[in-house]
């Protein structure tokens, strides 16, 4: 039996080491080695997917090795439906991002590819870790490469953006470390055993004071990552400055870390605190949903618009998690997958046009339907998916979240439903500005630079489009996978009671 989870986590490390031995004057070889590595990683995750049993409960493909025995810290990894689907999303988006970096990245290719592969280790590790300490280590591993990707290969204002990103997320994650340690100390104090293992801690009833403290620290880390209103302002800056592939990974995977953290740790470990804070978090989610969409409506920059749409869409994820309802939480997980595919694709679309024009302002774009019909069609497809057109995957997630929310809190769902109009407003506005009307003078001036999508760009977008369509029409396999874990989490939560000392 192969250690599949570890293979998925550490194959990129092997690739990174290989790239280190590729001569600097062979950038093309570097690219292909990196791409091959991500493909192998994707392959491992798909092998896991094929061998995954939806009927079995608990974690599968688990590996367990003592790491720091004195504190009961173990290298413990494994997957359930939620983490596996997010791992597959990660490996897929990484492969696509590496492919999408072939043309745009011409400087320091070697460093770039190594950074990207290290990033993949961290991302897969976060989803696979079953030990809280290991989780924290992987969580921080993600931070550094992303900091470098934005800071080195980013746009004009990249230093500001990357430092903002770094500080913001670091504040959250360091607080979370304190929360993790406090949790382990209390566990040790009451049982006499050191353990950071998810399975030990999840079944344990922590004292209300610790729950509130740890929940708040975890919440800050995850809320910043998601990002929830009002911790979201790092996101537009980071997206605007990041290179295309960086944006794809940022939107597609990094934001999911927060949502995943809520489901995996915040709810099962601290159910009482979760009940206590749920109303406030639901309120913040609804604000994020509406507010992100409203702000997106007036963005003059293509990429910023997509960034704010992420704030709105990720609001559905936190909303679906914190209403503690089965359909809503399944919808939230599904929405994470969708958002990864759709927003990732939208950022790729932005990248395609930025490659040619080096401009993303709507005022300078327009009329691409005539010159770039294939591009216009692709953009339209993902625009509709993002607007939640039934039959594409975006609809399933949003719909499940909202119908689940409606079952427990009709008013909240009703308010959130307004986003159907607002979302369509900014997306159709975007589409009209980029694609319709006559070719703008600025674009006319580009002449032959303005050509339709190259094969490599098509290769990055077609798999995403196929998945968006497939998951929209046949979401059942994914929903089956996440059904079990979601009901497990809700079981934990159902034992919680709201603590009385907060309004």
């Amino acid at each position, binding site marked *: 039996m192969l250690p599949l989870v570890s293979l998925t986590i550490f194959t990129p490390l092997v690739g990174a080491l290989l790239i280190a031995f590729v001569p600097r004057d062979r950038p093309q070889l570097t690219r292909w080695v990196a791409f091959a590595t991500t493909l192998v990683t994707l392959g491992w995750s798909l092998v896991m997917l094929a061998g995954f049993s939806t009927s079995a409960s608990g974690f599968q493909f688990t590996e367990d090795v003592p790491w720091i025995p004195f504190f009961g810290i173990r290298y413990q990894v494994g997957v359930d439906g939620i983490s596996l689907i997010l791992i597959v999303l990660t490996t897929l988006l990484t492969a696509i991002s590496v492919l999408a970096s072939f043309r745009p990245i011409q400087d320091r290719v070697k460093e770039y590819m190594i950074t990207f592969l290290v990033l993949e280790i961290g991302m897969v590790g976060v989803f696979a870790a079953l030990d809280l300490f290991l989780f924290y280590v992987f969580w921080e591993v993600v931070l550094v490469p992303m900091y470098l990707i934005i800071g080195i290969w980013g746009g004009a204002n990249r230093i500001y953006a990357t430092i903002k990103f770094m500080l913001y997320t670091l504040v959250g994650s360091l607080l979370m470390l304190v929360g993790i340690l406090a949790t382990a100390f209390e566990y040790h104090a009451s049982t006499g055993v050191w353990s950071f293992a998810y399975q030990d801690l999840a079944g344990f009833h922590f004292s209300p004071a610790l729950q509130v403290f740890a929940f708040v620290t975890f919440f800050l880390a995850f809320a910043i990552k998601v990002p929830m209103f009002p911790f979201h302002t790092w996101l537009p800056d980071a997206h605007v400055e990041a290179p295309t592939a960086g944006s794809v990974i940022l939107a597609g995977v990094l934001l999911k870390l927060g949502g995943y953290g809520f489901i995996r740790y915040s709810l099962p470990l601290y159910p009482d605190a979760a009940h206590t804070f749920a109303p406030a978090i639901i309120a913040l989610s609804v604000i994020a949903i509406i507010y992100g969409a*409203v702000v997106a409506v007036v*963005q003059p920059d293509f990429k910023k618009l997509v960034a704010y749409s992420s704030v709105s869409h990720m609001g559905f994820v936190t909303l679906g998690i914190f209403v503690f309802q089965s359909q809503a939480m399944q919808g939230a997980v599904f929405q994470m997958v969708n958002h990864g595919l759709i927003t990732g694709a939208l950022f790729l679309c932005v990248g395609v046009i930025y490659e040619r024009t080096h401009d993303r302002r709507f005022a300078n774009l327009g009329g691409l339907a005539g010159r770039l019909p294939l591009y216009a069609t692709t953009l339209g497809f993902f625009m509709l998916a993002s607007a939640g057109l039934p*039959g594409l995957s975006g609809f399933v997630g949003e719909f499940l979240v909202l*119908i689940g929310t*409606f079952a427990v809190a*009709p008013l909240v769902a009703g308010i959130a439903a307004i986003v159907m*109009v607002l979302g369509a407003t900014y997306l159709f506005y975007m589409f009209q500005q980029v694609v319709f*009307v006559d070719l703008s003078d600025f674009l006319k001036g580009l002449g032959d630079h303005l050509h339709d999508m190259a094969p490599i760009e098509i290769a990055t977008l077609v798999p995403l489009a196929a998945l968006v369509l497939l998951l929209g029409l046949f979401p059942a396999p994914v929903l089956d996978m996440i059904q079990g874990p979601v009901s497990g989490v809700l079981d934990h939560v159902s034992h919680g009671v709201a603590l009385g000392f907060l309004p």
Partner: protein
Amino acid sequence: MSNQLLVLALLALPLAGFALTAAFGRLLMPRAWLIAVPAVILAWAVGMVLVYRTLSGQLGDGFAFTLYTWIPAGSFRVDVNFAVDNLTAALLIVVTTIGMLVHVYSIGYMAHDPGKWRFFAYLNFFMFSMLLLVLAGNYLLLFMAWELVGLSSYLLIGFWYQRRSAALAAKKAFLVNRVGDVGFSIGIWALWTTVGSLNFSDVFRVIPEKLAAGQLQPWMVTGIVLLLFCGAVGKSAQFPLHVWLPDAMEGPTPVSALIHAATMVNAGVYMVARSSPLFSLSSSAMVVVAAIGIFTALLAASIAFTQTDIKRVLAYSTLSQLGYMFAALGVGAYAAAIFHLMTHGFFKGLLFLDSGSVIHGVHDEQDMNRMGGLWRKMPITHATMLVGSLAIAGIPPLAGFFSKDEILGASFRNGFYVVWLIGVVVAGMTAFYMFRLMGKTFYGPSHVDPDVHPHEAPPSMTVPLILLAIPAALLGLAIGWPPEAGLVHRWLDPIFAPAEQTLGLHPEAFQVFGIDGVLVLVSVTLATAGLIVAVRLFGVRLPGRDVEPRPTIVEAGTARLRPLYVASYHKWWFDDVYHGLFFVIGGAVAQGAWWFDSHIIDGVVNGVGAVTTLAGRELRRIQTGRVQNYALGIALGLLVMAAGFLVATTR
């Protein structure tokens, strides 16, 4: 072929046509219709077989089947399932027949358009979506089709995307529809929460049961059906969401005929009729439906009086006729509503295609003030349009007369006298504005640009016109005779029986020499009066002699009714109010939100950063870079420590 296979083939044909035309349409280019049109003709044939089997009673109450489970999420489960019954069949007749004829017509109409492969692909996609809408067996699948027809409408309105007005109109249509869809989807959530299923059969069984058992408050049922009705208001362009339909005329004329007159805009009517078991449970909701319907009928007719764009007049008349249908649904005359849907589909489709032929003939001119006297140049178009106009005006024995009078008669007999009164007035207004249109377009002196030589359309366009004129003239007689007992009632009464039972309506025999005869007489009289006034003012061609238009009287009349004229001409300022409300005020709110984001929220974040930087800059002064300063610090620190030690030990 088995029935299930027929249903699947009906959906697969246009879908395949769409996929193939989208993929290879450009290669076929001068004849981009080569795949799309045969696909739809085949679909029509399949549809007719299905319609025959259903309506002939071979299938009993119809049939339903499940293709696969679409969204399974715990206790929530929605299938892709289809249900076919007589109501479906009635809609299928309209959708497949008019769809096919419009496809054929488009061969000629779009002959010179370089992007027509896109046009045919979209048109096929629309056919698929519309058929899915009609065949869907649950609310979510219906909603999916609902959005897909909206999408195809968006694509086709914005077909000439280079025109800014077309791009804006397309966006407006989609967004206004979305407003209604918010209500529709909330209604769907509410249905699932109360019923636990979204299948039509389950919903219609459980809700009345729960209501009877007291598990469900009456206000909740009212709320649910009104939410569903929001969707219908959007899709069928009823007040207050009617503003998108006139703008949708930016699309090519075949699109206006198919989507914005004959099929898609009827989706709301279909949905409400399909949900009749729910609507009948709430009399207050029924009143709302009737009120919105008849008000829209009046509002749109009043606007149609003064518009000069030929397609916009037809668009407002579509709004008005849809209003009739909703009025019928509201008063409980479901079969009459569907009857009117069918006849309206044919005669309005015909009228739009005629207007397309006219526009084509005078080289893309849509302003009626620049037409006139065209009957001589375009005899077939003129003749068929005359049939259509008489039909919509409700002149017996053409199709519109039967369906409209059933609606009016039912509203009177069911006690909705106001609806009846307005309906009769609108009938007169309809006759007036339609013959104003006819007069300005076909009769009187020509105002056509002298450089333009009007000509009759090619056969691919005129043949569909003739084929549509036949049902526009005779459909009423064929399925609506005898009144209240025609074929259409035999088909549809079983479907609507439960709803009518809930409402306590008992079908009564039509009394030619009783109240019904009087009602018919009144409405026909008013319609004829409207027609005669219009003919006197705007001219007509009678056998043997021309009646000349009298522009001076028209001008004098307009001057006397100046305020009404201005209001009608400006469409009662709905567009301006909405523009102010959503673009000006809404835009300001959004700008404000962005300012808040970048100055307040981000300001706090950057403020924290700035304070840290400032503190660092100030504290940096301590670092002089001189070793001796540091050493002094060390020495002083040592002294302090030593002193502290001494103090501590000596005490």
